[in-house]
Structure formats: structure tokens, C-alpha cells
């Protein structure tokens, strides 16, 4: 289970780097919006839309607002991919 979360987070790193325009950005399961410069509500929207596009998924408004950190984001993605 941990292995899957980690590989999902690996996939997310390149998307984060594109959206926040920072090639050196690092993220972990505990990363929250407070940890990254410029991660405001609009950037969050951009991030979720980019993830939707890259992974072929769709998130609902309540799913997005329920996420506390990158780890929970990865878990949600895994759940959706399992149900696909």
C-alpha cells in the first residue's frame, strides 16, 4: 500500500513542478498548501485540473476540498484508478 502511494507521489512531482514553475520542487506525503509558495486557491484549481488532464480522472468539488495533504491526494487518486 505504501509502495503505491509513493509511486503515485512520484507521478505527481512533475505535475507540481510544471504548475508551480519550479524544477527543484520536492513533495512528500505530508506536504500541504502552506509548504509551497504561491499555492493559493487559484493555483490549487490549476493543480487539480492539470492532474485531471494528466491522469484522465475527474474530481468533484467535495473531494478536492476534503484533501489535507499530498498523501491524501495520492490516496484519492489510487482509489479512483482502482474503481475505474
Amino acid at each position: 500500500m505504501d509502495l503505491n502511494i509513493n509511486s503515485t507521489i512520484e507521478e505527481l512531482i512533475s505535475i507540481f513542478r510544471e504548475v508551480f514553475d519550479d524544477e527543484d520542487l520536492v513533495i512528500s506525503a505530508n506536504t500541504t498548501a502552506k509548504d509551497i509558495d504561491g499555492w493559493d486557491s487559484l493555483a490549487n484549481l490549476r493543480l487539480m485540473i492539470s492532474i485531471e488532464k494528466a491522469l484522465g480522472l475527474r474530481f468533484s468539488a467535495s473531494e478536492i476540498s476534503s484533501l489535507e495533504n499530498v498523501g491524501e491526494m495520492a490516496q484519492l487518486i489510487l482509489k479512483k484508478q482502482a474503481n475505474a
Partner: protein
Amino acid sequence: MSNVFENLSWLPNPPPDFAQRLATASTGSDLRELAKYGVDENQLRRLSKKLQDFQSQHTDLAPLVATLMPVSIGIISNATTKLKTPTMVGTALRFGIALTVVEAEYNQIAQEAFSADSSFNGHQLSAILVAIDYRGLPLLPTPGDLVSAGKNVKDCLDYIHSVIESLRTKTGAQIILQNIVPPVEGLSGSYEGRLPGTLSWLCARLNFELDTLVADDTFIVDIAGLAANVGLANWHDPTLWNMAKLPFAQRYVPIYADYVCRILAARLGKSRRCLILDLDNTLWGGVIGDDGLEGILIGNGDATAEAHLHVQRTALELRDRGVVLAVSSKNEDATARLPFKQHPDMLLRENHIAVFQANWSDKASNIKAIAQTLSLGLESMVFLDDNPAERMQVRKELPEIAVPELPKDPALYVRTLIAAGYFEAITFSEEDRKRASFYQDNAKRAQILNSSSDMDSYLKSLEMEITLAPFDATGRARIAQLISKSNQFNLTTKRYSELDVKALEESSNYYTRQIRLKDTLGDNGMISVIICRKGSIAWEIDTWLMSCRVLGRRVEEAALFDIVNHAKEAGAIKLTGIYSPTDRNVIVKDHYRKLGFIKTSSDGGIETWEFDLTKYESSKVPMKFKYAL
């Protein structure tokens, strides 16, 4: 096939070193070249950041202006606009525009339009994009009640009209109005559109009326058409609207930006005017040199033949709207012409093609020859070729030419070509219909000139007739069109709207001329526009532009003759002319010198030239003068 509009699939894929090239970009041209690739929103945002870095570093914008035209646009909307603006700036680079965006406060349309306080105050805006969607209008569905429905449409129109007129009066900016994308959900199913007073019915009526309501001075960006093209159910995204008031699915922002920028570019005269066609596997299936007349696929009854017939039919329709057609093919000339001459199912014939280049030289050289023969800049050209290698070669050699990427299936060539929007129009006049044949006549003249021994006898043989007249209502649309589209032979590149032109018709402070030229080979129509401000001592030449088709015919001297006569009669003693250099009008840098003006100053590149009227010596120009009243 993934959606041609969503992916802007006519744009070539970015090269593997795109990120590197972006990092090391140092000029406006660099950015412009990078924006021509089909890159996503993140890259377009990076491009816009790079442009903004340049703009903040360069206190003197002259190096940027030489390759990029600065345009500032305000955006006013009932929906969130923040997630559109970086993409718009990145996209504008594709059209050679350095865009600055000023956003109005979110969902404050009435306040921004009507109150003295406005986010637009203090900004010199060239244009304002008014993006009100159906949720921002006072739409009131009254299903089955035709009278109330009609009144509601009128109320909405009045609202839109007062918003745009108030903005126009306050800022003087060009208004670009988005039309209304209807909602997806038709509650009564197939009956919805027929039932007066439903939301669908109201939106449809509204769009129809908008076309007639707005003055020619307001441009409409057909977002309703775009949404229909991609599919309303794809366009509308309720999740995004609920979360952040995003008016449509974010993946359509790049094509939305391209649609808006096309109109900005068209206003700057950057719409393309010439379509150069490859032959084998583009205008017909197969290779004429190998397959012969019996073997090429063109006509009805075969899927491939019909696909190519559609390409020919589209080329003809474009020609009817003023796009000049040319051919560039790797073939023996006689072989290439065979289908045009003899194949019964061809729609295109030789007399539709202004310049026919069929030889074994490389296509880039041929295209340069076509541009020269037509006196059109390379930026006016579009090149259609099924062969990816040829496309790449032409793009590399001639980056100014638009070369759309094409899918493998020829049935989709037309869709891709037209989706690219190269020929975006903001006006249409009778002369557009005739323009292609003007260019053909001109190409014939170029051939005669090549075989003439000297210029004078050539010009005399044309038996030219020049007609000079002040601006009037009949010429107004064409005058405004010339003013908005002329880039090369244009001394000051001032853009005036039809309303401005109308005001000049009625003003006694201005000398205005619309100039037409006819000769034995044909009527060129209106080919030059001149505007002079009448001062008591000096007449100032505000606008002097001419179609490049009539270069070398001494029309300039004839025009000067007329200006001088009238200026002297009015008691002036000199003429003042300004030359404002741009990246496209270097052709006129010696215009005033050749006419005998003297340069009196040069300020930041802008030159002032003067002509002493007492020293005028008229030269005998080989044409008959006519004055219409």
C-alpha cells in the same frame, strides 16, 4: 481523432529542446517563435512570464517593439478571468503581439461600466474584451409567453448595449464582445428551441440580434460558435463553475485565447491573404507524374477523391472572400498543369491560380518567388502540404509563413486548415470578392514587365487612369479596410475605425483622398488612402498608404501632385510628412526622400520630413487623371 480545437492541432509539436530555448530566449522574436508551437497552458504561462520579465527589464521598449506590437486589453466578465490571462499573453506572442491585460473586478460589470471609478482608469487600453456569459445577463425564462420573451431579449440587448457604449465612451477602446453560449440542458428536449421564452430560445434570439445591434465598430468573438464546435457538453463544466466560477472547461482556454487574439491580429492587419497549395496528395490523391490523369483521385464516387475535392472547393470559397491562391509543386510544369487543363472533375482551374510554380527547386525558394510576384509579405502566406518533411523545411527556412500540421487523413484537411483561423476577417467588401483576380491581373503585369525593355514604355502601354476623390459614404467600408489592413506601404500605420472614417468625411479640417487605379488589364479598385490635416501654414500628412500591387506605377507622384495643388490653393507653404518605422514598412523609408521632401528631425526612430510647396516641380506621370465628386 482528438479534438482539433482543443489541441490546436495545426500547430507543430514543440521540439525536445523547447524548455532550454525558453530559458535562453532573449528577444521578442525568440518568444514569438516559441509561441508558434502547440504548447500547453503551463508553457504558455511560462512564455507570458518571460515576456513580463523582458518588459520590466527594458525601460526602452524599442527593441521589443521592432518585433512585437504592444497591445493592452481590458477584460470585464461576470466570471473568473484570472486563469485565462497568462494563456492570453502567451498566445498573443504567436501573433507578434506583446499583450498587457488589465482585469476588471470579478463580477462587477455594471459598476465597472457605469461608475466613474473603474479598474480601467489610468490605463491606455487598445481594446476591451467584454465576456458576459448567460449567467451574467438579466435573462428571465418565461416558457410559452412570447410577449414577455421578446421584451426580455430587448432588455438584455439594452443592457449589453449600454455596457459597451459606456466602456467605449470612457476608454475609447476597441470593444470585442463575446456572444452567448447557451446552456446544455434543454428541459423540454427537442421542443426547447421552438418554445418561446426558454433559456435556449432566449440565447438564440439574443445572438441573432447581437449581430444586428452592434455597430461595425464592435467586434464579436464567436465563442458560441467555438463552444458548438467543441460540443456544449464538453464546454460547460458545472464542477468548475460551482467551485470557482470558471465559465468553461479549462482545457479550452488555449483555443479561446487564440480566438480572441485572432481578432486583435486582424485589427492590426495581420490576417493572412494568400493560400499556397501543394498539388500531389493535397489537391488530388496520388502523384500526377506517376499516376497520370486517369490515376489521380479527384471527384465524386471515391472517398479519397471527395476529400481532395473538398480541399479544392474550400480554396475556391476562400478565393471568393479575397484570399489569393497560388501553387507550389515539385513537378514538371506541363505535368502539373495537366489536371487543371484536362481533368473533368477538377474544381480549380488555371485561371483561379495567381502564380503557378511547378519545378524541381525547393519549395521555400518557390514561395519566396510567389511572394515577390504578388508583392505580398511572407507573413501573408499560408502553405498547405500533405508532406511533413516539406512542411518542416518551409517552416525552418521561412518562419513567417503559416504551415499547418495536417492529420494523415485527407478528409480532415479542410477542418484543420479552417480551424486554424488564418484568414480571420473583421470586414467584408465588394473588393474582397474581386481581390483574387486583381492579384492575377497584377501577376500578368509582372510578366509583361519582365518582357518589356524599359519602364516608361511599359507604363505607357498600361494606359492607366487614376481617380482621386475625397472620402465618401460609398467608399467608407473599403477605406476603413485599407486603413486596417495595410502594413507595408504605410507611412504611419494609424488604424482608424469606420466611425473615424465617417467623421473625416464630414470634417473641413482634413484633406482626404481615396485613390483608384485602372489600366488596360483590369481595374485595381481603390489602392491608396491619404489623410492630411489642413494647417494654415503646413499641411500635415497623417496617413499615406498604398497597396503594394501598384508599386512602381508612379501613383505616389500623382497623389503628391494633387496634394500640392490643393495645399497651395488653401494658402499653405509647406507639407509635413511623418515616417513611423515598424517591422513591416521598411519599404517606405525613402518614400518622402524620393518625392523631394527633406528630413528635418528624427526622434526615437520616428522621422519628420518637410516639403517646401514653392519648390514643387510637377513631373509628367503617365496616367489620365479623373476626379469624382
